[in-house]
């Protein structure tokens, strides 16, 4: 007789094992497509099993389980724990891993990439299992191991195309950040162990910390998890990494790996029953700073994968802000604020891991179709790739928070939380000020995604790169459609998640139960609104159904809603109508805000010299590399390596000098003899 507990454990372990080993067939038969198919099937089966187990777990009331594994380790038995919060973070792991691997069948087809395809599949599976393990870990060593395996697997996914120097460079920077994060977390765990005397994770509701260790724990957690989540200033690895990785890997990174940082931050935020107010304040400040910077940087990008990566950073900042509000709610004993904050953070996390992978998959589909990454030179793809266009539009609308899509619901909750925070008396009301950042980010996201959608899909093509483009195959399209569907469903029926949110928030809350989110947020109104808006859109759609005009005009069409369309060229002030190149480009579309914020964005203008009476054709463009990397980290690294080079003379090859070193150290140590202990 299996108990519910052991069946959940068994199911999860099998799901993880399936995922972790799924890459082996593909690696073994790297020249054949069959291996890849088996691998993908295994992975999808594992993910489906995981989701099924999770569903059963939710239906069973999401109790808190702890398992100790019979295992010999110097740090006590490894533990796995599952509670409502962990289960909440597990869902996107399985979903995106499964969807992404199916997408990868078409995107990184085995027949085109026999060597790297196997590797990619192998590390995809390992990454999936490791991320699930990060969430499930109930002991420091298990957690740190899973964390590092995740980071390393991420590295290998990133260097899938390692013959490209820019890919290697991005992967290297990623690895530096990942290692920095891992070391911070190791230090954090060691300090936590010093504080609690146990290796178990995660401690909850500790009484106040009399020593100052909790400060270090908090800051290290912020650095470690913040680096993974991409909170500024530890975000520097993120844009390049996402831009360099294959499409579905970027989706995986941005949709799931970043949320592992969020997960850790949430766990750390719940350590103390009565956290100091500055914890929440710090989350809020860091989150606001991150969101603001990333939002502004995002609009300056012309490489749309970089733009999406920056928008991921921005969303992580928003989540951190919401978490900060929740923490402030706990500190100020305001359960309403705490519930709003944590539910906003959780829901936005979930939403982000639906629409951001969707957008990356769309971006990947476009790259797959036209073989270029920038928005420049594209346009008019909506005609060649109508399905991709539709799902991309859904993604862009969702991330811009347009009702009735899912992004709207979570952003609404976070705005709401801000307004609640602003209504307290006392200085903590200033916590509402970052509301402006959230609004600015919303508008910046708008701007960035309108630009992306319109320059790629709308208007006319600027070059003939788009001529051969077409919708991708079924294996790529299906995951995109599923994700887009989920965006719509969660936007219209958010109430379906209310119970899950309640439980996850309850599992998080370090200070007693939180109010039911349904009593604060009018989910049913969103549903009504969603149905009305969707119905309206459907009516417009039906009414606009084109049919041939009875009149004899060529290409003239008419519809029920708008009579007698006359199809002509766009009015262009009398200029040659078919010149798509005169239209706005990625560089020019958002030039104005880029110019306003140039002191923060620090764009590089590459302007040609135009001289003479008959100047040669010239090109101008703008680059917006990461300012932190460009103006701080790289120069610093160069300076350090120069300094280090000076020390290398110590090892100059002369044996006499080497013996002199021995004599010197002997002298120094001899002097220490006379130091009394």
């Amino acid at each position: 007789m299996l108990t519910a507990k052991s069946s959940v454990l068994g199911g999860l372990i099998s799901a993880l094992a399936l995922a972790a080993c799924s890459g082996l067939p593909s690696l073994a038969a790297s020249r054949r497509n069959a291996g890849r198919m088996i691998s993908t099937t295994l992975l999808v089966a594992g993910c489906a099993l995981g989701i099924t187990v999770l569903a059963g777990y939710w239906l069973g009331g999401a109790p808190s389980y702890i398992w100790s594994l019979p295992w010999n380790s110097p740090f006590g038995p490894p533990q796995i724990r599952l509670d409502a919060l962990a289960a909440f973070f597990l869902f996107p792991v399985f979903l995106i891993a499964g969807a992404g691997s199916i997408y990868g069948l078409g995107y990184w087809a085995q027949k085109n990439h026999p060597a790297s395809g196997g590797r990619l599949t192998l590390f995809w599976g390992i990454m999936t299992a490791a991320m699930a393990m990060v969430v499930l870990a109930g002991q420091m060593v298990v957690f740190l191991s899973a964390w590092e395996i995740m980071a390393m697997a991420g590295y290998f996914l990133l260097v899938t195309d390692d013959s490209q120097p820019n890919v290697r460079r991005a992967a290297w920077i990623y690895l530096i950040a990942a290692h920095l994060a891992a070391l911070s977390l190791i230090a954090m765990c060691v300090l936590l162990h010093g504080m609690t005397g146990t290796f178990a994770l995660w401690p909850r509701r500790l009484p106040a910390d009399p020593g100052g260790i909790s400060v270090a724990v908090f800051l290290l957690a912020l650095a470690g998890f913040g680096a993974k989540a991409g909170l500024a200033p530890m975000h520097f690895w993120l844009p390049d990494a996402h831009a360099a990785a294959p499409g579905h890997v970027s989706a995986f990174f941005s949709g799931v790996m970043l949320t592992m940082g969020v997960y850790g931050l949430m766990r750390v935020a719940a350590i103390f029953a009565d956290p100091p107010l500055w914890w929440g304040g710090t989350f809020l400040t860091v989150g606001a700073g991150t969101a603001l910077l990333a939002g502004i940087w995002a609009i300056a990008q012309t490489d749309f994968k970089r733009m999406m990566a920056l928008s991921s950073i921005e969303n992580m900042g928003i989540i951190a802000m919401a978490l900060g509000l929740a923490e402030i709610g706990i500190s100020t004993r305001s359960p309403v604020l705490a519930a709003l904050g944590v539910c906003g953070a959780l829901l936005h996390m979930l939403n982000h891991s639906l629409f951001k992978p969707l957008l990356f998959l769309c971006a990947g589909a476009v790259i797959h179709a036209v073989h270029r990454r920038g928005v420049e030179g594209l346009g008019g793809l909506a005609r060649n790739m109508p399905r991709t266009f539709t799902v991309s539009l859904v993604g862009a609308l969702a991330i811009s928070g347009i009702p009735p899509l899912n992004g709207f619901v979570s952003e609404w909750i976070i705005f709401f939380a801000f307004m609640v925070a602003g209504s307290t008396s006392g200085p903590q009301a200033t916590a509402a000020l970052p509301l402006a950042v959230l609004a600015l980010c919303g508008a910046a996201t708008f701007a960035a995604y309108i630009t992306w959608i319109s320059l790629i899909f709308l208007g006319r093509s600027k070059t003939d790169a788009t001529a051969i483009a077409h919708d991708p195959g079924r294996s790529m399209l299906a995951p995109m459609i599923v994700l887009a569907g989920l965006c719509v469903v969660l936007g219209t029926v958010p109430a379906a998640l209310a119970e899950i949110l309640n439980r996850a928030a309850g599992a998080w809350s370090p200070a007693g139960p939180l109010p039911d989110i349904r009593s604060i947020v009018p989910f049913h109104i969103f549903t009504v609104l969603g149905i009305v808006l969707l119905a309206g859109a459907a009516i417009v759609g039906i009414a606009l159904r084109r049919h041939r005009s009875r009149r004899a005009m060529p290409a003239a069409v008419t519809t029920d809603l708008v009579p007698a369309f006359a199809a002509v060229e766009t009015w262009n002030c009398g200029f040659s109508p078919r010149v798509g190149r005169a239209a706005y480009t990625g560089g020019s579309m958002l030039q104005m805000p880029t110019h306003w914020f140039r002191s923060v964005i620090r764009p590089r203008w590459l302007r040609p010299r135009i001289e003479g009476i008959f100047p040669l054709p010239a090109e101008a463009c703008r680059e917006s590399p990461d300012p932190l990397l460009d103006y701080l980290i790289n120069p610093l690294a160069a300076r350090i390596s120069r300094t280090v080079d000076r020390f290398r003379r110590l090892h100059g090859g002369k044996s006499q000098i080497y013996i002199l070193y021995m004599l010197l150290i002997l002298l120094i140590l001899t002097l220490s003899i006379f130091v009394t202990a």
Partner: protein
Amino acid sequence: MIYLAAIFVCLVGGAAALVTRSDKSRPLILPVVGAVHFALAINIIWGSPVAPSYGILHIDPPGKIVLLVVSLLFLAISFYAVGYLRYRLSRSNRVLCFCMLMLLGAMTLVICTDHLGVMWIAMEATTLSSAPLVYFNRTRLSLEATWKFLLICSVGIAMALLGSFLIAYSALIRGLTPSMSIPSLIQQAPHLDIVWLRAGFVFLLVGYGTKMGLAPMHTWKPDTYGEAPGMVGAFMSGGLTSCAFLLLIRVQRILAAGGQGPWTRHLLIFMGLLSMLFAAVFMLGQRDIKRLLAYSSVEHMGILALGLGIGGIALIGALLHVINNGLTKGVLFLSAGNIHRAYESKSIPEVSGAIRRLPVSGTLFLLGFIAITGSPPFGPFVSEFMILNGSIARGHYFAAVAFLLLLFIIFLGMGRTVLTAVHGRPSVAARHTPYQDNIWTAAPIVATLLLVLIIGLFIPAPLANVLQQAGTYMGVKP
């Protein structure tokens, strides 16, 4: 006389190597001796609950750990050597095989004695028997490396001799009967003269620290490991240095018994961090993969010294790290040796795309790098985590911060070179060299890496048992 048997096996093997004529069949002696030695080592370590003692021959629990590493590593290297030497038939391997076995014998003697004088003799013997190994390639550079190795290690080992004398002298000056046997020194320890005892420790630290490769006495290491064949580097950096560390553990125990524990700990932490700092500085921008590994060895010796200095759980961590470092260094040096063979160079940018050129060795090298930089799920992570834990538990916050920072810098330095070497595309010249991975040169590395992985996942009960013995022996409260 199981200890003598273990040493005798090496001597017999050495003699056989000298008389064997064929360069092709001679290397086969190595695995045979390795296997017998390993069996004997297992017997020594786990054969009886209390280690037997024959006069000056005795093994203490930390020695068991080192013996395990040395024997295991030699076993792996001996199989590798068979494959490796097939590619080096252009020169006689008689001296190489002979000296490898002598080295093993000397190391066994170092481990299985409790007399400071004998330890010194055996240690000097390791220096002498490894010198011809370094000179195996017979190039100008290897000659220079041998010269420096010999000179610096000889001076260092002379200091160690002086240190041993000084410790005995500290008894003499108090009117006690001088002795160099560790049990009697431990007995005398509370009555020894503090200044001379400390002086003895300083000289022993510098002396055996030289053999270990602690900075700033590490100067021979990059030259030697850079010029010696990979298998020699593996054995020296994994085995020889561990033996030197074992001697420091034993000496530190005498000092601790004399009430000088805290003072020695400060010295050891200082030397440990200094070594890590030197390693970090020289690893940044290091383009030669073998020299890089040598500095990594300096780093890990620093970590060992640090763990010994911190004590408590960190000491257990250091002992575990002896195993992890030894085995991982084996993986790294052996795979680097294969890469060196395949590229006929050991520096970037000549070496690039190793994963494409040598799928097995390249991957192993990369995994070894991941392991040695302390990433889970490999063993070094566990031991480094224990050391870090110990340093926090015992209030060495500065050491903990410095440790983490230096680990990060070292990761940067090492990663840059290793990743450049393994990724990318191999040059045309490198694609046309004769070397290809084969079962002899790849399987031992894979097996070693698996062991490192196993230790990272869980500590097998027998090993945990020995670690616990060592902890109790060193006075670590559980």
